[in-house]
């Protein structure tokens, strides 16, 4: 599911709107079309299958309950859904561990993204714009932002992983966020 085309996006929006009206069929199709994506997001952050199972379940029960508040004028369905999955995953990470269970992997070895030419061609306008703005950042800062986004790590954890003082990490990320805001709002 890579809702790159406007038609696909609109279809997902409609499914989510219908889910908000308690349309079970729409909810089932929404799950079918988006659960692999959201499971990938949960798994990437939690790095643990059974936790990802649980968080995905929490995500979609929340989707069912909150879908009525979805407003397609404010956000696309996939953004709305991904935000819920990430929030649930991050909350789970905070609940029981400040440090990840697995060995932290180095920022320089960030992987797991599909960077094939095909993926490139399928990516949305929004994705390409964001990538362009990320590319304008210093490499270390760009990598910190990506690591933070994909692992849900706190400032403390990021600083340890990168072996830099906490203040340095905070300033890297904060400066990056402000630069991204300027770049993306242009």
């Amino acid at each position, binding site marked *: 599911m890579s809702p790159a085309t406007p038609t696909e996006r609109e279809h997902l929006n409609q499914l989510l709107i219908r889910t908000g009206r308690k349309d079970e069929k729409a909810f089932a199709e929404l799950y079918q079309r988006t659960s*692999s994506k959201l*499971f*990938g997001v949960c798994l990437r952050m939690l790095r643990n299958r059974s936790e990802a199972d649980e968080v995905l379940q929490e995500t979609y029960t929340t989707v*069912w309950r909150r879908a009525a508040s979805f407003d397609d004028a404010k956000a696309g369905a996939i953004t709305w859904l991904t935000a819920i999955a990430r929030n649930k995953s991050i909350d789970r990470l*905070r609940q029981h561990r400040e440090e990840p269970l697995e060995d932290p992997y180095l920022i320089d070895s960030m992987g797991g993204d599909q960077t094939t030419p095909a993926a490139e061609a399928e990516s949305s306008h929004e994705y390409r714009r*964001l990538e362009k703005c990320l590319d304008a950042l210093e490499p270390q800062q760009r990598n910190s932002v990506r690591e933070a986004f994909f692992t849900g790590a706190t*400032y403390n954890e990021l600083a340890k992983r990168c072996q830099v003082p906490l203040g340095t990490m*905070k300033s890297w990320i904060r400066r990056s966020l402000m*630069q991204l805001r300027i770049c993306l709002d242009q």
Partner: protein
Amino acid sequence: MNATADDGGDDLRYAEYVLGVLDADGRARVAHEVQTIDEAAIAVAVWQQRLMPLAERVEELAPPPYVWARILDALHLGTPAPLKRQGLWENLPLWHWLGVGASVIAAALLVVLFLPNRTPPPAAGHLDYMVSTMQQDNGVTGWTATMDLQHARMVVVPATPVAMAEGRAPELWLIPAGQKPISVGVIDRDKPTTIALDPAMLARLGPTASLAVTAEPLGGSPSGQPTGAVIAKGAISGAPPAGAPGHQVARVYVRDPGAGPV
């Protein structure tokens, strides 16, 4: 660019929230603001728009099928399964069909499930299914339970609708040998109930455990332990491995008692 770390204020905090770098307290504070302050909700939504596209490239992976079963269960929904399914357990029309004529057809299903048991059951741990026939004191089968270990699901089919006092509902219990009953959930008395089994529950299923149904207040026992009388009970045994689920489905139809004497 001249952006500095200090010029963001609240908006920076909302960005940090969306990116995911805040600690638990910081997150709780922003989550509360999103609920109570319009500006916070808008700012967070805008940051989500800005940053969520990054997730586009995350590798997709199909979740295990029991997740959907658990979602439906948690929300008390009966939506048909959205995923392409195969085999007896995935055959929802079959289960719906079973629900229509449960009283007679459950018996047919039981026959099917027990038929190959003339051969020794496979060693525990290699079972795909387990079954239990829960009988009432008078020897009449009240419910049959079939447990799909692979997909962590149990389907409980009423064989004979059991009379219940007003304001009471049947609740199913798993009783591991020598241990306290564990609530599996409230079940229907007149149609099949599908229940997702959590890993702790799965681990306790086995030939030394049994199932029992008690009459409890609507919504289930308030104490977490049975409070009412046992109305049906049965041991758990291994069902034949699902080597040929299609074959089994065919047999269910063949042995439909409506079509002739069993």
